[in-house]
C-alpha cells in the first residue's frame, strides 16, 4: 500500500466539493457523526437534500459565505492506497492556494462542467498544473447528467482539452465522464455511460502508477541537523540528519558537500537507529562521512557523478502570494529545502497571463496571485536543479524578513 496525494481544481459551481464528498461517501470514509452534522446544517437549507459539499467546508466563515477560503486536507483509503486530497478553492483570487495545494500533489483532477466545456478557469488550472509540473492529470467531465450523458458533448470537450494539453506540454492526461451528484463513474461504473470503456475515477486513482514520480537517479540529501551526542562513548559521533529527497545513497559512495565543494565518502548510513547499506528517497536517515569535513544545516550532500547547479543568480517563475506588491529591487530570504539565504529580486522579466499563457511586457511590480518570470540574485551560492527536471530540488520560497511571511513560490528554471 502506498500514498497518492492529489488536488482537485474547480469551483463550487463545477461540483468540486460534491465530488470530494462523493469519493469519501462512496468509499465509506465518512463517519456517521460527520454525516449527521451536515444533515443538521442541510435542514436549514431550502432544497433539503444532503449537501455533500458541506463535508469540505471546514470553517464557520466558509459555511456562512458558502465558499472555501483555504486549502483543506482530506483523507481516505481503500485496500490499495491511502489518499490525501488537497482541496483548494478555484476562484481567480485564490491562485496562491491552488499553487500551495499543487506543490505537494502527484495528480490533479481538473473538473470541467460538461455544459460549459473548456473555459477560462479550466485553462488557468491547467496552466498551474503545468507550471507546478504535476505528473498526472485527470480531466473529469462533470455533470454528464445535465447533457443527457451525451458522448458527442464529451468527445468535443476531449478534443478541446487535448489541444490545450499539447500547448502546455501536459503529459499523462486521462479523461473520465462523471456525475459527482449522482455518483456516475466515481466508484461504480455508470449504466448511463455505456459508450465509455475506461476506468471509474476511483479505479484510476487506485491504479495509476506512481513508480516514476520519485526520482532515484539524481541523488540529493539536504542536511537538516547535525547529531553530535558529545558523550564519552560517542565522543566522535557526528551524523548528518536529513531526508533523501531524490536518488539512492550507498555506503562507500563518493560524495561532494555543496556549496563548499568538499569531497568525502559515505562511511555509514543509519535508518531509524539501525545501520543500513543503502538508503533511497524519500527516507529520512543519518549519514556519516569518512573525512572530517565542514557540514552544517543547509548544505546538500550529493554524489560526485551528478552535481546540481551551483549559482548565485537564478531565473524563476514566481507566484506572488502577498498583499504587498513585489517591486524589483526588493530583498527577501530565499529558502530551498533547509537552506536559507538572503536574496534580491533583480528584475521582473515578464508577467504571465494565467488565462492565455501570454507574456506581458516587463511590469514594474507584481501583485497577489500574479505569476511572473524574475531574476534573483542570492548572497551565497545555492545548489539547485531546474524545477522541470527535479521538482524536489527546484522549488523555493521567498520570505519577507520584516513580516516573516511566505510571500512567493519560485519554480527555478
Amino acid at each position: 500500500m502506498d500514498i497518492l496525494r492529489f488536488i482537485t481544481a474547480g469551483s463550487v459551481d463545477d461540483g468540486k466539493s460534491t465530488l470530494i464528498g462523493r469519493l469519501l461517501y462512496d468509499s465509506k470514509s465518512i463517519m456517521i457523526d460527520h454525516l449527521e452534522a451536515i444533515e443538521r446544517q442541510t435542514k436549514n437549507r431550502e432544497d433539503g437534500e444532503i449537501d455533500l459539499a458541506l463535508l469540505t467546508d471546514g470553517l464557520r466563515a466558509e459555511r456562512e459565505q458558502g465558499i472555501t477560503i483555504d486549502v483543506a486536507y482530506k483523507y481516505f483509503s481503500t485496500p490499495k492506497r491511502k489518499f490525501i486530497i488537497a482541496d483548494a478553492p478555484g476562484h481567480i483570487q485564490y491562485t496562491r492556494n491552488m499553487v500551495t495545494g499543487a506543490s505537494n500533489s502527484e495528480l490533479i483532477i481538473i473538473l470541467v462542467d460538461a455544459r460549459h466545456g473548456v473555459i477560462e478557469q479550466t485553462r488557468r488550472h491547467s496552466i498551474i498544473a503545468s507550471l507546478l509540473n504535476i505528473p498526472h492529470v485527470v480531466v473529469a467531465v462533470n455533470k454528464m447528467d445535465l447533457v443527457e450523458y451525451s458522448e458527442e458533448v464529451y468527445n468535443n470537450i476531449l478534443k478541446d482539452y487535448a489541444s490545450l494539453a499539447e500547448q502546455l506540454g501536459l503529459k499523462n492526461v486521462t479523461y473520465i465522464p462523471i456525475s459527482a451528484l449522482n455518483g456516475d463513474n466515481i466508484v461504480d461504473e455508470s449504466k448511463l455511460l455505456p459508450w465509455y470503456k475506461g476506468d471509474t475515477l476511483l479505479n484510476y486513482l487506485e491504479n495509476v502508477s506512481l513508480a516514476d514520480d520519485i526520482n532515484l537517479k539524481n541523488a540529493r540529501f539536504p542536511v537538516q541537523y547535525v547529531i553530535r551526542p558529545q558523550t564519552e562513548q560517542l565522543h566522535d559521533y557526528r551524523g548528518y540528519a536529513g531526508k533523501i529527497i531524490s536518488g539512492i545513497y550507498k555506503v562507500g559512495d563518493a560524495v561532494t558537500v555543496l556549496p563548499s565543494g568538499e569531497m568525502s565518502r559515505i562511511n555509514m548510513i543509519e535508518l531509524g537507529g539501525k545501520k543500513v547499506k543503502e538508503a533511497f528517497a524519500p527516507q529520512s536517515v543519518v549519514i556519516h562521512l569518512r573525512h572530517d569535513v565542514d557540514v552544517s544545516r543547509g548544505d546538500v550532500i550529493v554524489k560526485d557523478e551528478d552535481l546540481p547547479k551551483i549559482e548565485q543568480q537564478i531565473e524563476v517563475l514566481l507566484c506572488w502570494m502577498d498583499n504587498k506588491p513585489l517591486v524589483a529591487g526588493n530583498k527577501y530570504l530565499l529558502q530551498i529545502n533547509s537552506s536559507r539565504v538572503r536574496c534580491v529580486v533583480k528584475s521582473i522579466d515578464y508577467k504571465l497571463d494565467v488565462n492565455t499563457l501570454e507574456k506581458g511586457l516587463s511590469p514594474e511590480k507584481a501583485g497577489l496571485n500574479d505569476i511572473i518570470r524574475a531574476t534573483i540574485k542570492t548572497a551565497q551560492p545555492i545548489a539547485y536543479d531546474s524545477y522541470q527536471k527535479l521538482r524536489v530540488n527546484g522549488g523555493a520560497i521567498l520570505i519577507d524578513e520584516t513580516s516573516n511571511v511566505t510571500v512567493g513560490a519560485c519554480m527555478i528554471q
Partner: protein
Amino acid sequence: MSDYKLDYLDQLESESIHIMREVAGQFERPALLFSGGKDSIVLVHLALKAFRPGKFPFPLVHIDTGHNFKEALDYRDNLAEEIGERLIVRNVEDTIKLKHLAEPKGKFASRNALQTYTLLDTIEEFKFDACIGGARRDEEKARAKERIFSVRDEFGQWNPKLQRPELWSIYNGKIDKGENVRVFPISNWTELDIWNYIKREHIRLPSIYFAHKREVIEHEGQFVAMSKFVLLEPTDKISVRKVRYRTVGDMTCTAAVESNATKIDDIINEIIATKTSERGETRIDDQVSEAAMEDRKKNGYF
C-alpha cells in the same frame, strides 16, 4: 525498481521525522507537548528515530489538567525516565488558584478550555518558540485547514484567514520574539494509520486503551468513567462495563467505548468497522457547537 518503494507507513514516518528535524534546525527553544495519549506517544517514538543516539533537542511538556487518568500519568513518568529525557509538568490547578480562574461548572465539567491558560503561561515561562503537538488533520474540520507549521501570535491565537502558504516540504518557521509556532508532524496520519504504526513498531500504550472493566455513568449514549470529578445525580445510571478508550483526555470529557478488544489487532478491526469518528464518539467538549474546535484554536488551544 520495485526494491526502492516505500510502504505508506514508511512514507508517513519519514515525513514526520523530517518535520521534527526542521523544528530542531529552525528553533532555539522548542518543546514537545506530551499528553500521555497515543498520538503524543507516537511523537516520542518518532523523535527517538529522528535524534538518537543524540538527546532530544526539546523537553517533553505536559499540561496536567488534574483530571487525567492515573494510567496515563504513570505511563508518562515511566516513559520519561526510560528514555532519559527531561519532563516538565505544569498544572492547570495552579493556574486556577494563581489567576483566580472560575472552575468550569456542570455535570462533566471539563478543564480542557482552561488548559490554554496554563499552556500559554508555560510557553512564556520557558520562552518556548515552537511546540510540537500530536494533532491530526483527520480529527476535525478546523484541523483539516491548519498548516504543519502553524504560527500563533503572542496570545497563542490562530488566524485561519492569515495562514502562511506551505509549499513542497519547505517549512517557514521564522517568527518575531514573543510569537510561537505550533508544529504538527503527524498532520497527515489518520487514526487507523496511528494504530497500524503502533502495531508495526510494537509501541507500548497505557492500559486504558485496551478493554478493561470500569465503573461508568451512561450519559446520552456515551460512557463516562466514574470519578470524583463527575457531579453525580440521583438519576444517574452507574454500571460496570467492559470498555476501552479511543482517545485519552480529561476524565470528565472523554468517553469510553464498549469493547472486548484486548489486543491491538482487535482494536484495529474495531476501528475499521466503526462508523463514528474518534472525536465524535469520545469527546464531549467538541459537541457544544458546530465550530467548537475552531473557536478554541483561535483562542490558543492546540
